[in-house]
């Protein structure tokens, strides 16, 4: 029984894992803007821009360019330097069909919140490059009749408005004319943003904001209330009310700095100045994501709002405070489109991963093409993402499992008749699981049946073996190292028998046939239904070994490994191609040669060709997948004491020497619902070549008591050319009784 193991290990190196593609989440496709370009004195002069996180939207490059916001109000001062450049020539006084001059000042102030220009003077609006369609609908006293507002809305729709801002209201429902104008605007896909009113917190929105919950508006009419600079409900603001709560937002509406008629700034309060924040926000979204429908833009603002007051949608605050940061970020399920159509199949981003086996090292880690990919959010908005972050590398670390595998497992050799053998593995370990409180509780405790091997000598030269729940390396006749190095080295299989680690424990059989006294032919077959997809499959192996009379041996082997859901221990999932499987052929030549008294030179070289059957994902058409491993060492016996062993081994664990595949990525989407894909032939070889150097010494202190120790050094661990060397030391104390 293997009783005790004591180990130390110190891993070095900078990785071996594939480097992630940088920080931050997905970003919209527009080129990013430098913070210095939007976090200006002009920006901070108006605290409300910071309050709604407008800078996060500006960082994406959006400014409202190309989006028209109609301001149905008292006109606009067309000479104001902050507005002049943004005013549409279609602007009009709907009452007189003449100029839009604003003798009240209200319209000028509202327009400034929407789209005062960013010109390092005074302050700027939310969508500072949007086009302002000023439609004056007020009479000489600054009030508005329903019919004039209705005419103004209709005019705005006819002249290309994407958004209509209504910083006005009254207590009574609109006339049929006004209602129809609003319904028609919504039917035309125009977003209508209306001030909730200044009657106080005891009242629901005035009209037309009170139409927000009216199904005839198709969800395109928003009611907007006001908060102060600390996000408290403004005392004058009407609240959302039950009927409008789902289409009700809040925005800054107390002491908002904006443009004043005649030039300069005014500081204004009222829901009049909250509403244009939302109008500007819609403009920013429509420019940033031109594929959005107006209804989607509205839904994004509603769902991304910062919850205020009672949790969730409530009668007072509705959806909450406008938040342009959250509105710019992906919302809903993130997915990777796998076809050329937005409406086509997609795979969840969180499931889209490649976990590369150790043989691939840091392959794909520095692939710049992966950073060109896009994903879609729940509103089918495209975001650029570096899919390299979803490529996980497997570092070949100082694994202790090979040494600890038998800890707590008792192997019982059952006495049998001559020519037969039977060994039973009994598990004495204690297993734990997390209980409901998250604490570990004992789940099972040995002894429990673990594995079984049985053998029978069919003839003097033929032996048949069976294995149940044994690893390939434990299965008879699967292993050959050219000399007796069993238990001597720490990590010898990586170099000398690389195929043995590709699948897990399973059931199988072996057959050994002696041909004369010096030649052995062996066959091994093992099949595993391992729960781990990367180690599920089967291995079949044939080997011919010849032992020379003068000492030493030579062995030729061929192994066929089928991996059910993996390729060289690598696993693709989601859009990368779930269901990828592979078949590998390993060709090996190994042997030993005596070079002195008790000293053997050992060596092994393995070459493998792998056929990858991709799962139809983004990474496909694998070709020319070759990998190799080698080891060269020397083992001396009786060096310092009788029956001790001293060994040196230099080896390269399995490394992919060549591999190509076609990587097809979604890189953009157009307004017709098409996904633009690009393909690139990618190289999947690692950048470096890991060489493991080991010195091992094993000594029997007393009968049944062994001591083993190792020193190990890994050069370019994980086949990563940039990785620092790793060092390890191990010590094992074994008592057998």
């Amino acid at each position, binding site marked *: 029984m293997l009783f005790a193991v004591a180990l130390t290990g110190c891993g070095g190196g900078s990785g071996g894992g594939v480097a992630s593609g940088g920080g931050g989440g997905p970003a919209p496709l527009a080129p990013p803007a430098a913070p210095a370009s939007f976090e200006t004195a002009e920006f901070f002069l108006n605290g409300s821009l910071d309050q709604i996180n407008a800078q996060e939207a500006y960082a994406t490059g959006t400014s409202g360019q190309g989006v028209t916001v109609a301001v149905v109000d008292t006109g606009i001062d067309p000479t104001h330097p902050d507005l002049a450049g943004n005013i549409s020539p279609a602007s009009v006084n709907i009452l007189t069909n003449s100029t839009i001059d604003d003798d009240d000042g209200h319209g000028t102030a509202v327009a400034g919140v929407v789209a005062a220009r960013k010109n390092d003077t005074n302050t700027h609006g939310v969508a500072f490059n949007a086009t302002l369609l000023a439609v004056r609908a007020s009479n000489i006293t600054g009030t508005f009749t329903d019919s004039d507002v209705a005419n103004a809305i209709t005019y705005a729709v006819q002249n290309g408005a994407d958004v209509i801002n209504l910083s006005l209201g009254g207590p009574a429902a609109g006339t049929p004319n006004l209602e129809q104008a609003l319904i028609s605007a919504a039917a035309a896909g125009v977003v209508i943003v209306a001030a909730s009113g200044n009657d106080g917190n005891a009242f629901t929105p005035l009209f037309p904001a009170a139409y927000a919950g009216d199904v005839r508006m198709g969800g395109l009419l928003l009611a907007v209330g006001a908060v*102060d600079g600390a996000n408290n409900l403004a005392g004058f603001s009407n609240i959302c009310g039950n009927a409008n709560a789902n289409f009700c937002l809040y925005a800054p509406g107390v002491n908002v700095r904006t443009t004043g008629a005649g030039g300069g700034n005014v500081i204004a309060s009222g829901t009049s100045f909250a509403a244009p924040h939302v109008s500007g926000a819609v403009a920013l979204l429509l420019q940033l994501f031109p594929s959005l429908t107006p209804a989607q833009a509205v839904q994004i603002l509603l769902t991304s709002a910062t919850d205020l007051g009672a949790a969730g949608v409530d009668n007072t605050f509705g959806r909450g405070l406008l938040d342009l940061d959250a509105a710019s970020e992906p919302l809903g399920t993130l997915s990777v489109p796998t076809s050329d159509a937005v409406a086509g199949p997609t795979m969840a981003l969180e499931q889209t991963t490649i976990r590369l086996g150790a043989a691939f090292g840091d392959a794909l880690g520095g692939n710049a093409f992966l950073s060109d990919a896009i994903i879609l959010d729940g509103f089918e908005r495209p975001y650029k993402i570096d899919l390299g972050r979803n490529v996980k590398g497997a570092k070949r670390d100082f694994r202790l499992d090979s040494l600890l595998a038998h800890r707590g497992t008792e192997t019982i050799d059952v006495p049998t008749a001559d020519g037969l053998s039977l060994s039973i593995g009994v598990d004495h370990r204690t297993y734990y699981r997390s209980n409901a409180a998250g604490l570990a509780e004992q789940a099972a405790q040995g002894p429990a049946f673990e594995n079984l091997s049985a053998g029978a000598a069919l003839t003097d030269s033929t032996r048949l073996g069976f294995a149940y729940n044994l690893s390939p390396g434990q299965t008879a006749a699967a292993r050959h190292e050219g000399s007796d190095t069993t238990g001597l080295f720490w990590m010898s299989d990586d170099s000398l028998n690389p195929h043995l680690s590709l699948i897990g424990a399973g059931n199988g059989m072996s057959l050994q046939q002696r041909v004369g006294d010096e030649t052995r032919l062996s066959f091994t077959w093992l099949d595993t239904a391992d729960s781990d997809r990367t180690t599920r499959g089967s291995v079949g192996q044939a080997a011919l070994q010849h032992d020379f009379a003068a000492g030493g041996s030579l062995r030729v082997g061929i192994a066929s490994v089928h991996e059910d859901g993996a390729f060289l221990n690598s696993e693709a999932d989601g859009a990368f191609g779930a269901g990828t499987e592979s078949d590998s052929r390993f060709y090996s030549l190994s042997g030993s040669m005596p070079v002195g008294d008790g000293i053997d030179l050992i060596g092994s070289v393995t070459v493998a060709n792998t056929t990858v059957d991709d799962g139809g994902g983004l990474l496909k058409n694998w070709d020319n997948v070759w990998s190799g491993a080698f080891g060269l060492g020397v083992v001396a016996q009786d060096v310092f004491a009788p029956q001790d062993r001293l060994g040196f081994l230099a080896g390269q664990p399995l490394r992919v020497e060549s591999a190509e595949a076609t990587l097809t990525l979604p890189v953009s989407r157009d307004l017709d619902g098409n996904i633009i894909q690009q393909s690139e032939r990618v190289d999947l070889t690692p950048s470096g070549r890991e060489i493991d150097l080991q010195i091992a010494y094993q000594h029997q202190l007393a009968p049944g008591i062994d001591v083993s120790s190792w020193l190990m050094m890994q050069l370019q661990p994980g086949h990563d050319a940039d990785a620092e060397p790793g060092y390890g030391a191990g010590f094992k104390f074994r008592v057998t009784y």
Partner: protein
Amino acid sequence: MIRPFVLLASCLLLACSPNTEPGPSKPAAPTREVPPNAVKIADDLYMVPLDQPVEGCPAYRQFSTTKMVNQAIYYRARQGGFTFDRNEAVCD
């Protein structure tokens, strides 16, 4: 001394106001009746003082019985009349 006065004034205002106070649990739309304390500034256009000052400044809202009005908060202006520009407001 000020607080009891404000409280008393608030009670009086509430007592005199139309029956339009449903409370947050049952809000209702305001009426079209001219509030008794409204200041007429034009034909069918009034300035209605708010119950609470805005940022410490006595404030008003526009009101009309037949038309829609803008939803700015107004203050008494130094130059006389009303202004929505806080810079020009008389806040004493």
